[in-house]
């Protein structure tokens, strides 16, 4: 691996362990809160008795739904998630009470004495059971457990299947996955002298957190200030629940008038927080004799669990990307979200794409194998091309469609063609079987037609020449602050040492949406460019006279501000002082709104996303004949990220995505017995460790994207969404066994 210089504004603090995460914050007089669960999966007539707990030494309060001034339930789409359960229990993760005490030990002790009783009901735990016409209806006020149904209608596949040379029908299943961020949820809420509640929490959406708190306490946004502090990862998993944790601490702080800390341990975090949706997919794919995909018909069900969260958006992405990166003329897709009594499902890195890719990228290989066509040729023939049409009817003419180039570079780099011939295909003369497998994908950047897309940036120039920067994008540990600083330094032509990223809060920058959907760099970066341009215009108009040129002739580079000749330049210190003397604040506010997208929900047609990231990953595996153990030995990944702002961080996202994806492919699975999770900590929910990481190589491909003001698209989620099928294809080429369920398992008795 080549050494590449990285920039991180938090590098030293992270490496030396001095960065302060939520649980590291303490305030005088601070109380400790712990949640109380109930051992029910589905129940009604919930009753909580905190009398005995309250009598314990140090116990200050036992809070239940009746103590909540606002709404107990909240959610990003539907207000159905109970921050504190009221009356009914819909999943094993529901929190029934909150205990506050002087110390954490005392709170834990008291919490164990809270009596929770309810009348248990038969839980609905599988998609099949939930779809049964006689099944109890889980969502209140609804007439079905189907909580969302997306349709995609493009051409007429039914009429085409008959004429196909080959029609493959296959079922695929994916498992429940925990995000497994390093830092479990934590929040400290501090009542300020002026009545505002300050929130220091581990969450990835400060504005959503503010909405949760506001609704729960029935207080205006202005009375709640949520700060960004160092955060130990989120991977999509720190929205609803993390916000609920903050709301609970806020309730405690408001009621007691003292700072309250609520820090989760791993067991609570795994028990309560939403997971990646498990999918059950049926695909029917028809090919011509040359290998062209003529038609696709698919029905898929995602288990949404007990609450809706973002299930409609996750399944929408699965709908829009239901055929992978292939332009298929005849497609019919029906994608359902189904309510069950399982701990709910929500956002996780990849967001409805890894599941679909797991199916599609295997189907392509199966088709190629059956028709005797090389898998590369098969992909090349069918993949989206410049000015081509997607299955949602979108014409890809506004950016460079580079999928073929991306695939070619990965294939060339790893030596796929030669290695493909060397695959064991079930036999070898030693104990191991070798295989190589490939997958390609495209991923719509940012939210697409799922939501409103906008972001703000504030540049607050100081009169000594230093600069404060802030955007509505949240630092989850991914390095977004550093990226914004690099973009600003580039735009202003300054040394980045001038820039500090200010600790932002919900009270200082407008709501800019959540830091998800690989939208941080594309949206936040573009807003930085807009603000930087405004700042340059402002500065130019006030110093042009001193630079002896017109304001549109002023240029910014080499850490100075220039007129037309070398003699006419100002340092930033001089220019800022000049503005000060002119009583001008070097302050700029910029917003960026995502380009238009469109969607027709009845046909699933429209311009789903304004741009796409094109990806290819190729994996080599060894399968042990005696044990069936699959070992990934090498992965090469290529992604067209538009433009790499912080190259080492781009590669870091690739390697991290691959590693997290290997966990999903080979070892991770949340085990649910009767709706109760049995592997509640990382000792039993096993994620990959350094010793499981293969050789990895990342190839950064850059086609400047005209719709992004920096040219950059993104990398967070593309990195994880296609490794599972690449490994599954490699395992097939090693063993001759096709695995259609995750995690992949090879039974040794099936190997010769």
């Amino acid at each position, binding site marked *: 691996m080549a050494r590449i210089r990285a920039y991180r504004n938090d590098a030293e603090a992270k490496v030396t362990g001095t960065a302060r995460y939520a649980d590291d914050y303490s305030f005088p007089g601070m109380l400790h809160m712990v949640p109380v669960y109930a051992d029910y999966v589905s129940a009604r007539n919930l009753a909580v008795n905190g009398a005995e707990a309250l009598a314990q030494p140090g116990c200050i309060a036992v809070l239940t739904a009746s103590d909540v001034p606002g709404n107990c339930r909240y959610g990003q789409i539907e207000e159905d998630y109970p921050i504190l359960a009221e009356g009914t229990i819909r999943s094993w993760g529901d929190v029934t009470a909150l205990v506050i005490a002087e110390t954490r030990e005392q709170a834990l002790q008291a919490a164990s004495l809270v009596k929770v009783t309810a009348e248990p009901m038969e839980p609905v735990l599988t998609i099949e059971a939930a779809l049964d016409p006689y099944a109890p209806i889980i969502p209140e006020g609804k007439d079905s457990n189907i909580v969302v149904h997306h349709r995609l209608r493009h051409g007429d596949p039914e009429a085409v299947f008959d004429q196909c040379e080959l029609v493959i029908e296959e079922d695929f299943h994916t498992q429940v996955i925990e995000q497994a961020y390093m830092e479990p949820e934590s929040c400290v809420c501090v009542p300020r002298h002026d009545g505002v509640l300050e929130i220091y929490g581990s969450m990835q959406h400060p504005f959503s957190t503010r909405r949760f708190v506001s609704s729960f306490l029935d207080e205006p946004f202005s009375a709640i200030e949520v700060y960004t502090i160092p955060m130990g990862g989120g991977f999509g998993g720190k929205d609803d629940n993390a916000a609920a944790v903050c709301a609970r601490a806020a309730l405690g702080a408001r009621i007691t008038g003292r700072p309250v800390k609520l820090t989760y341990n791993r067991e609570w975090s795994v028990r309560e927080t939403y997971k990646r949706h498990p999918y059950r997919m049926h695909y029917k794919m028809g090919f011509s004799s040359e290998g062209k995909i003529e038609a696709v018909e698919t029905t898929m069900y995602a288990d949404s669990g007990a609450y809706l969260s973002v299930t409609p958006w996750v399944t929408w992405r699965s709908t829009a990307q239901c055929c992978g990166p292939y332009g298929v003329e005849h497609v019919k897709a029906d994608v359902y979200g189904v309510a069950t009594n399982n701990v709910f499902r929500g956002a996780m890195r990849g967001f409805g794409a890894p599941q679909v890719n797991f199916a599609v990228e295997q189907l392509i290989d199966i088709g190629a194998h059956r028709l005797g066509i090389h898998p590369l040729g098969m992909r090349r023939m069918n993949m989206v091309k410049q000015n081509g049409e997607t299955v949602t009817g979108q014409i890809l003419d506004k950016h460079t469609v580079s999928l073929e180039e991306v695939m070619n570079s990965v294939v060339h780099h790893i030596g796929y063609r030669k290695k493909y011939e060397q695959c064991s295909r079930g036999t070898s003369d030693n104990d191991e079987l070798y295989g190589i497998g490939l997958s390609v994908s495209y991923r719509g950047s940012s939210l697409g037609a799922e939501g409103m897309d906008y972001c703000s940036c504030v540049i607050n120039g100081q009169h000594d020449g230093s600069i404060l920067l802030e955007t509505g994008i949240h630092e989850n540990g991914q390095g977004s602050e550093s990226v914004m600083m690099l973009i600003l330094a580039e735009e202003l032509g300054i040394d980045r040492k001038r820039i500090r990223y200010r600790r932002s809060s919900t009270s200082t920058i407008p709501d800019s949406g959540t830091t998800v959907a690989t939208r941080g760099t594309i949206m936040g970066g573009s807003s930085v460019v807009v603000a930087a341009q405004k700042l340059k215009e402002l500065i130019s108009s006030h110093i042009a006279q001193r630079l002896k040129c017109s304001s549109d002739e002023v240029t910014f580079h080499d850490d100075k501000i220039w007129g037309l000749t070398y003699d006419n330049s100002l340092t930033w210190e001089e220019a800022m002082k000049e503005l000060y003397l002119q009583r001008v604040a070097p302050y700029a506010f910029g917003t960026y709104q995502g380009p238009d997208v469109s969607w027709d929900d009845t046909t699933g047609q429209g311009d789903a996303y304004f741009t796409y990231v094109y990806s290819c990953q190729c994996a080599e595996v060894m399968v042990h004949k005696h044990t*069936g153990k699959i070992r990934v030995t090498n992965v090469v990944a290529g992604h067209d990220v538009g433009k790499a702002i912080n190259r080492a961080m781009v590669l870091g996202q690739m390697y991290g995505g691959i590693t997290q994806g290997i966990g999903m492919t080979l070892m991770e699975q949340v085990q649910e017995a009767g709706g109760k999770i049995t592997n509640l900590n990382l000792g039993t929910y096993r994620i990959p460790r350094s010793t499981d990481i293969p050789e990895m190589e990342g190839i950064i491909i850059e086609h400047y994207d005209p719709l992004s003001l920096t040219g950059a698209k993104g990398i967070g989620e593309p990195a994880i969404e296609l490794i599972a099928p690449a490994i599954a294809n490699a395992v097939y080429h090693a063993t001759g066994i096709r695995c259609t369920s995750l995690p992949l398992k090879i039974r040794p008795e099936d190997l010769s």
Partner: protein
Amino acid sequence: MVDVYHPKTLEEALQFRSSTGAVPFSGGTDIMVRYRTSHGVLPDLPWPIVLLGHLKELQYLRLRKGSLCIGAETTLTDVMDHELTPPLLKQAIGLMAAPALRNLGTLAGNIGNASPAGDAVCALIALDASIELASPRGRRVVSLDLFIVGPGRTILAEDELITEIIVPIGEGHISWYKKVGTRRANALSKLSVSADWAVDDNVLTHVRIALGAVAPVVLRCRDIEDDMTGMKLPEIALQREDLMNRYKCSITPIDDQRSSAAYRKQAASNLVGAVLDEMTGGR
């Protein structure tokens, strides 16, 4: 609250142990996890403990009468790194847990914990190890194989401590080790196989095959080992499938969170096949 004894000598430790029944704490890498309460709060131990990991007099490796004697409180790291340690034991320890845990964990802890998935125990049983137990009443040496009687159950008396592990040095022995876990490090075994054998003039003169995590205790099939001993290698090669089947029939694993019974049975039998291949130079 829990009573914790911190003895200065083994003698003092034995006194504490016999007078209070305190549970021996040898590294604590299992106890501390099993009795954890919550983040930021000390574990809630149900009984008094006597700390042993700091006792220097129980930390050594030395040769005595053709055996390697290992002080019971020697850390797994120190055992693994020592030149006298048999390769089989080194391999087994090398795949246990993670470096930080191996720096704390001890052989006595791994043995006393008596998990059927204890990797060091599996290797030690294949090596015919025995252990020395001490109490104020005196000392006794028992075969490790007989010491562990069930998951978490041993014949350690209320007043006894494990003081030494005795591993016979099998001159010219060949060994083989394989562990199957969910991942390559810091994973409890789905199953493990330790084998140790000797060959003289193409005849198998000694063989031990120990299977971990496939039965309530680490398993050896003595009848099969006895049958194999004295056989010529080509004969063993001929009976490969038969021997594998006998092992397969002898084990009755369970389904648990880590693996399934069916997988364990098949994989264990395959790994026995691999041992036989290694032995006979087959395949």
